[in-house]
């Protein structure tokens, strides 16, 4: 009889030794599964795709946030900034060249980020086919736990955000308006502003975990740097969240009109 418990050479399962009985379990170990050899099949490579696309989006968010703050300089400054984005490089480059480069890079980053997330999510689901009856959290943060569902909500937010402020399709004043008009119209509406605020808080949580995770995935974390990396994650996430909340909250409280 082949007696294969997994790690113990003696193969004792349970006891009963006192009575001369030994409960044994005979089983065949699972078959070796052939690993996939493609570079993008590796979970670590998928995580790297996630990290790099995430960093590209963070850099964009920082620029976007600084641009938003132009709203404090008034309608004219805000609208001319919006016009400038469409004319960068003119007359050497055709109109909107820089804008479309930014858009294509961002779209690629979002698609790759999403692909990696869905692929790893599916792998994680396969990895726990039977759930625990009781499972406690020992150390995980709220940010790390909500990163997947938070990411999905952020994807919906991005779609709505483009329809609202870029295309004007769902904006109270519609497309035939200046960017500044659309900004004021949206944030004068309480439900829209609330959705925006909730999304930005989720973004902050997403970034707090994401920045730490990206650093770890790119192999740049160690015990000595742990505090610094976590500090960086908090600072960048905090700056981006507060920076994006300043404009809508200022509209709500009448500091901008």
């Amino acid at each position, binding site marked *: 009889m082949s007696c294969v*418990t*997994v*790690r*113990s*050479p*003696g193969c*004792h*399962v*349970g*006891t*009963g030794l*006192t*009575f001369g009985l030994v*409960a044994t*379990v005979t*089983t065949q*170990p*699972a078959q*070796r*599964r*052939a*690993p*996939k050899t493609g*570079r993008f*099949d*590796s*979970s*670590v490579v*998928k*995580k*790297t795709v996630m990290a790099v696309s995430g960093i590209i989006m963070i850099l964009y968010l920082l620029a976007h946030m600084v641009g938003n703050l132009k709203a404090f300089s008034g309608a004219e400054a805000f609208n001319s900034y919006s016009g400038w984005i469409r004319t960068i490089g003119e007359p050497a480059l055709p109109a909107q060249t820089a804008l479309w480069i930014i858009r294509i890079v961002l779209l690629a980053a979002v698609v790759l980020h999403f692909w990696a997330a869905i692929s*790893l999510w599916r*792998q*994680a689901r*396969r*990895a*726990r*086919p*039977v759930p*625990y*009856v*009781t*499972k*406690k959290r*020992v*150390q*995980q*943060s709220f940010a*790390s*736990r909500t*990163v997947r569902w938070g990411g999905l909500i952020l994807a919906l937010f991005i779609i709505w955000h483009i329809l609202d402020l870029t295309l004007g399709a769902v904006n109270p004043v519609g497309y035939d308006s200046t960017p500044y008009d659309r900004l004021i119209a949206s944030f004068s509406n309480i439900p829209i502003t609330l959705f925006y605020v909730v999304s930005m808080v989720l973004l902050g949580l997403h970034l707090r975990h994401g920045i*730490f*995770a990206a650093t*770890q*995935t*790119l*192999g740049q*974390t*160690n*015990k000595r740097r742990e505090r610094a990396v976590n500090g960086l994650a908090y600072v960048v996430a905090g700056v981006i969240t507060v920076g994006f909340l300043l404009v809508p909250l200022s509209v709500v409280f009448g500091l901008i009109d």
Partner: protein
Amino acid sequence: MMSLTLRIWRQRDRTKKGKMVTYHVTDVSPDMSFLEMLDVLNEKLILDGDDPVAFDHDCREGICGSCGLMINGIAHGPEQATVCQLHMRSFSDGDVLDIEPWRAGGFPVVKDLAVDRSAFDRIISAGGFISAPTGTAPEAHSTPVPKKNSDAAFDAATCIGCGACVAACPNGSAMLFTAAKVSHLGLMPQGQPERDARVLKMVAQQDAEDFGGCSNIGECSAVCPKGISMETISRLNHDLLGALRAGAVPMS
């Protein structure tokens, strides 16, 4: 003496569906280890003509990595040690304890609380070795190793392969185990020849065994009886990206 209510996962074999069954144990000494408490339960079950609860155990001194149970939702229970080193004094009289096997795609249940952890052996056989010439042991100082590296390699090498990292991980990832094995060889001069191929092959095997990917949550390290740090996973990632940049192709 303590009395406890245990809710234990009972499952005939891999193919049958399991369920939680409630048992009462009395006369539990606070000085018993958790496994000894289960022995007391099993003696009672055998006397009653019932099937004793199957669970893995071997050395009972915290070094073999055989035992491993999910106790009230925490891998290895409330202390950061193996179940055999967990004593009943960590619980109170009248406690209700849920006891479950490790849950992972790569760890199918064999019976009750015993799971098949041969997936770990297959991750090791994919690359967790060095090619050393056989014969007389070489002079220890012939290959100098920086103290920092030998310490870090030793910390990683304390991994006993119990599987608590997988059990605790919300993604069911075996990355802490794989990273410990990759690190402890990759930090030593003897581990350099296969360093690139090793990390690629071991990560590919961990993915193939139905373990999840790491999302840097840190539950693994928090329950690891040997306190293996998340730093090892960062080192694995660093090695894997370096291997890809160097154009390493895993030799088969």
